[in-house]
C-alpha cells in the first residue's frame, strides 16, 4: 500500500478563559500532514505548521541490542538530527523530552525486549519546532501501527512583552517573547504529558496558557482524526 495522503486544514483556535487578554495571534498556523512517504521506515510522516516542517520516521517494534533491552517493555529511542551542523546539547534535551512524551503513551508492555526508534528530521525551522516534532512523531507512530493508549500533540505559545499570548509562534515572535512555553497534551482528556518552558511568567499565567493550549489542541486532534479518516476511507 503505497498511497500517500496529504491533508491540510486552516485551523482557528478559540479564545481561552474570559479573563486572559485577547491577543491578535490566537490562531494556529496552517497545518498539513503527509503519511507513508518513505519506503524503508515502518512508519513515516511529515508535519507542516506554517513554514516549520519536520519529517519523522519510525522503526519498530524491532530487534534491540542486548545491552539496551528492557525485560518487560519496549525500549523507545528518539534520534533528532538538526539540519545544519552536528547534534549538540539542545538536540539531546529535545530528544529526551520527545522520548518521555512517547513513553507515556506507547503501550511498551505489549512488545517486551524490542526497540521502537523515532527519528525526527528538521526540514525547516520557522518557530514552534518542538511542537512540530511532537506532532510529526505522533503521526509517524500511528502510521507505523505502534500501539498507543492515546494520541498526543504539541502546542507552543509565546508571551510577548505586553502580556499577550501568541499560539504557534514564528521564530521572530519567539525571539522577541518574554517566555516561550511548549506543552504536550494527550487526546483522551487533554492532560498534560510534557511541558518545556523558557522565560519569566507567574503561576496564574501558566494555568491560563495551559488552558489556552488545551483549547488549541482540540483543533489539532480534530485535524488528526480528519486526516486519518480521509486516508483510510480511500482504500
Amino acid at each position, binding site marked *: 500500500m503505497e498511497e500517500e495522503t496529504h491533508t491540510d486544514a486552516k485551523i482557528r483556535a478559540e479564545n481561552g478563559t474570559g479573563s486572559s487578554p485577547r491577543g491578535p495571534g490566537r490562531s494556529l498556523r496552517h497545518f498539513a500532514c503527509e503519511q507513508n512517504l518513505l519506503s524503508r521506515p515502518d512508519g513515516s510522516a511529515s508535519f507542516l505548521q506554517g513554514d516549520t516542517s519536520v519529517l519523522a*520516521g519510525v522503526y519498530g517494534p524491532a530487534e534491540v541490542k542486548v545491552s539496551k533491552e528492557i525485560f518487560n517493555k519496549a525500549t523507545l529511542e528518539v534520534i533528532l538530527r538538526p*539540519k545544519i*551542523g552536528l547534534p549538540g546539547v539542545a538536540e539531546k534535551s529535545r530528544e529526551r523530552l520527545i522520548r518521555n512524551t512517547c513513553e507515556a503513551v506507547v503501550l511498551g508492555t505489549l512488545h517486551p525486549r524490542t526497540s521502537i526508534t523515532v527519528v525526527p528530521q528538521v526540514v525547516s525551522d520557522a518557530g514552534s519546532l518542538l511542537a512540530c516534532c511532537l506532532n510529526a512523531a505522533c503521526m509517524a507512530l500511528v502510521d507505523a501501527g505502534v500501539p498507543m493508549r492515546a494520541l498526543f500533540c504539541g502546542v507552543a505559545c509565546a508571551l510577548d512583552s505586553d502580556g499577550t499570548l501568541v499560539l504557534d509562534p514564528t521564530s521572530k515572535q519567539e525571539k522577541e517573547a518574554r517566555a516561550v512555553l511548549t506543552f504536550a497534551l494527550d487526546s483522551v482528556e487533554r492532560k498534560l504529558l510534557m511541558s518545556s518552558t523558557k522565560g519569566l511568567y507567574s503561576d496564574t499565567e501558566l494555568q491560563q496558557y495551559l488552558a489556552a493550549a488545551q483549547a488549541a489542541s482540540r483543533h489539532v486532534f480534530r485535524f488528526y482524526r480528519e486526516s486519518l479518516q480521509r486516508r483510510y476511507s480511500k482504500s
Partner: protein
Amino acid sequence: MKETPLSNCERRFLLRAIEEKKRLDGRQTYDYRNIRISFGTDYGCCIVELGKTRVLGQVSCELVSPKLNRATEGILFFNLELSQMAAPAFEPGRQSDLLVKLNRLMERCLRNSKCIDTESLCVVAGEKVWQIRVDLHLLNHDGNIIDAASIAAIVALCHFRRPDVSVQGDEVTLYTPEERDPVPLSIHHMPICVSFAFFQQGTYLLVDPNEREERVMDGLLVIAMNKHREICTIQSSGSEMQ
C-alpha cells in the same frame, strides 16, 4: 538493527533477470529513475527524490579565518549523513565505511573539481573568508545514494544566497537580508555523478542501481561529469572488470 540478509533465491533471481536484460522495476539498462526536486522556504534548502531514495540538502555560510596556506580562498565543507530513518541498518556507530567512502567521493566531485569559485568567497585576504557548509541528510535508502546526494548538493549550492558584504578600507560591513538582497554563489559548472553497477565481471552493466541491485552487484563505477562533457571524478570499486 542488523541488515536483513538477502536470500539466495532472490539473489539468483536478480542475476538471472539481469542476464536477460530485465530489471525488477521495468526499466531498461540505461534508464534513470524519475527525479523530483523540491525547494524549502530557506535559501539553500532542497529535497531530491531519485525514485524512492530521498536526500535533504541545506547550505549555510559563516565568516571565518582562512586556512594558513590558502589565505585568499574561501572554505567549502561537505557533510553527508546517513540518517537512522534511511535504513534500519544505519546506526550511529555502524556506518563508518560507507559513510567515509561517500563523503570522500562527494568532496572529490565538488571541491576538487573547482565548481564553486572559492576566490570570490574571500572578504579580507588572510583574515576573513566565507565558509560554505553543505549538509546532506539521506532520508530514505533505495539505492544510488551518491547520485542523489550529488544532485542535492549542487542544486542546494545553486539555490543558496549568501549575505552581501562590503569592504571600505579596514571596515567590513555585513548586511542583513533586509538591508541588501543576498548574493548568489559563483558557480563555474555543475558536476553530477552517475553510477554504473557491474555484474559478472563487467559483462552486464546497469545505470542507477536500486537497493536490491546494489546488494547483488560485483562492482560500482561512479563518473562525475558536467554539461561541457568534462569528467570531474571517476571512481571504480568492487571486483575486476574485463
